[in-house]
């Protein structure tokens, strides 16, 4: 268990760095957030200056250390302050509304892409030089294409021209959000196209990575020994080669999560999907600083938690790690 605890400490450090960046951002930047807001709403009286400062949490009295402590305290109580654009709503509630959307869509799509990509990578490595292996450069083109561009093309094709899928949004306007059947059907229907774009653009990366590790693994002596013993190819591929190649792949999964999240943000913006990415875009375009800060923190912590889960899985599936854990 001690490995996990050590990793936990590492993520705590990473989380603290993110927290600190977030704290110093509004204080270190040359611009003045308060003046930006004042400029945006010309009918605000100069006397509102103090009020906005208080709202943004930057005009705090006291030393910077005191501000830092109260800031960390607020974050731990999920108290991100009041939103600027949607005034009475608290930032935390705005984020809370969007998170389930993002988690469901991005989580499912990423797991599918990872599974499919790993499977295809195994096949490509085993059938070296086969059609799948030779199709790799083409798949790389898909991967190199900007996320949003592919999304736009698919949107054009399936939603505008063919009318197979809706033009965006999380659910149709005619259903009532909640745990009812029409809503679930509508939400699923709306999520198919965005999910497909994530899968299509990220599958090649997983595939390439798995293929390259697999090729190195296939060259190992124990694979040759397995073949020499007369084991079936399937057994050699899956139980001998792929099993060992999968561990680096899983490690890569943790590191790639940060990139996946970035792609998903853009995806939501293209599809006007009511997730956290769209919220971030709205926050940036309306100079909504508290919301921006909070979203950055939430996304970072989500990625850190996902990474921790990957570590736990790593310990569970790697017998060497388990042995060390047990020792």
């Amino acid at each position, binding site marked *: 268990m*001690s*490995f996990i605890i*050590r*990793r936990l*400490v*590492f*993520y705590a450090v*990473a989380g603290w*760095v993110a927290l600190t*960046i977030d704290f110093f*951002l*509004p204080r270190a*930047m040359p*611009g003045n957030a308060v003046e*930006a807001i004042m400029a945006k709403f010309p009918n605000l009286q100069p006397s509102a200056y103090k009020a906005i400062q208080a709202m943004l949490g930057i005009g705090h009295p006291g030393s910077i250390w005191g501000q830092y402590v109260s800031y960390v305290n607020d974050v731990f109580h999920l108290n991100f302050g009041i939103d600027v654009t949607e005034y009475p709503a608290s930032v935390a509630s705005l984020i809370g509304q969007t998170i389930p959307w993002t988690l469901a869509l991005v989580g499912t799509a990423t797991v599918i892409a990872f599974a499919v990509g790993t499977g295809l990578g195994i096949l490509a490595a085993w*059938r*070296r*030089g086969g059609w799948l292996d030779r199709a790799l*450069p083409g798949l*790389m*083109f898909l*991967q*190199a*294409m*900007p996320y949003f*561009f592919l999304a*736009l*093309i698919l949107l054009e094709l399936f939603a505008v021209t063919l009318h197979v899928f809706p033009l965006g949004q999380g659910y149709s306007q005619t259903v009532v959000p909640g745990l009812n059947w029409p809503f679930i059907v509508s939400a699923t229907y709306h999520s198919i196209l965005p999910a497909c774009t994530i899968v299509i653009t990220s599958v090649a990366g997983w595939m390439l990575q798995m293929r*390259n590790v697999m090729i*190195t693994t296939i*060259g190992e002596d124990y694979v040759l020994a397995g073949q020499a013993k007369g084991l079936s190819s399937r057994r050699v591929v899956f139980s001998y080669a792929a099993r060992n190649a999968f561990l680096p792949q899983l*490690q890569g999964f*943790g590191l790639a*999560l*940060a*990139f996946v*999240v*970035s792609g998903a*943000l*853009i995806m939501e913006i293209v599809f006007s999907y009511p997730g956290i990415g769209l919220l971030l875009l709205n926050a*940036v*375009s309306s*100079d909504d*600083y508290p919301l*921006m800060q909070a979203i*950055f923190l939430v*996304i*970072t912590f989500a*990625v850190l938690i996902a*990474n921790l889960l990957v*570590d736990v899985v*790593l310990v569970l599936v*790697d017998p*060497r*790690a*388990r*042995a*060390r854990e*047990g*020792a």
Partner: protein
Amino acid sequence: MTVAMPVSVEQTALSASPQQFGRWRRLPTNAKVGAILLGIFVLIAVIGPLFAPYNPSYQNPSPALSMQAPSAAHWLGTTESGQDVFSQLLVGVRLTLELAFIVGVVATALSVIVGVSAAFLGGIWDELLSLLSNVFLVIPALPLLIVLLGFLPQRGQLATILVLSLTGWPWGARLIRAQTMAIRGRDFVAASRETGEKSWRIIAFEIIPNETGLIAASFVNTVLFAIGASVALAFIGVADLNSWSLGTILYWAQSQQALQLGAWWWFAPPGVLVALMGTALVLLNTGIDELGNPRLRDSSSASRIAGHRLLPTDPTPVLMAEAPRRSRLADFLHGFSRSSLADGTYQRSSEQQAGSRRAGDGWTGGEQR
């Protein structure tokens, strides 16, 4: 000049041109295609704007020229306000590539500095620098970029370059550190140290020349990252929207509903260009990989006998890197990294705590449990 790029990573002098040609021919196909594609893009970036038929920002007031399909006068049609898309692309490629290359140079320099000094200084410095790069790897870059740029009063080219360089270095630093660790233990480094060479000289003339391949690969990767991130940032509007880069063209196309109005000539070409640029870089990178790792090389070289493909089973020589020596504090810190699970440091340190365990006991430990 760009064509020679993957070649230049591993050689010092090119005197005879037939030899140069031979080298070029021996490169993996991937690298060749990538280099040629990239060369074309650099050419467009250098001379393209000179050949732009119109001023990309000039808004033609004639209503007939709003969203006009491609014609002889406007090869790629016009935008909503009558601007020439082709001219915008020619200018945009330059701005995008320029930004990406500058970011590539700055971020790669940062990762070389961090990576080499982490490996060379060793001990506590190594652990702290590794911790720093791991932390920045795990923090998602795009939200950080958006928030950083969101707070900046002006979101111009310089700000984007700065912010991208600050977030683009950790991956390269990790790779370079690992490589430096391996090289540091080699005989020729020990020899030059014995002859009394100074540390900076060893780093600059013994270690870095041996890492050119890796540095080139991480440069290519960083450029790829910079292109993707800058285009994405511009697309969502966090950029200087008055200048023409491929991202801003896409931003205006999207915000003026080019897609819904069927103006494919407006949004498709910039996207395809970005995708082609990315593909060129990915191909170049796999090419560099294949140069370094023979097993990944051209699958067509695998022999085929009676319908069965022979697997490349010949063993590759593996050099065991000397286990890094750490102070107790550094050892403790290293235990927090994911790689400690792989290299057995974790096991070592827990053995020291248990006191009585033999080395190599790790395998049987799981069964006893």
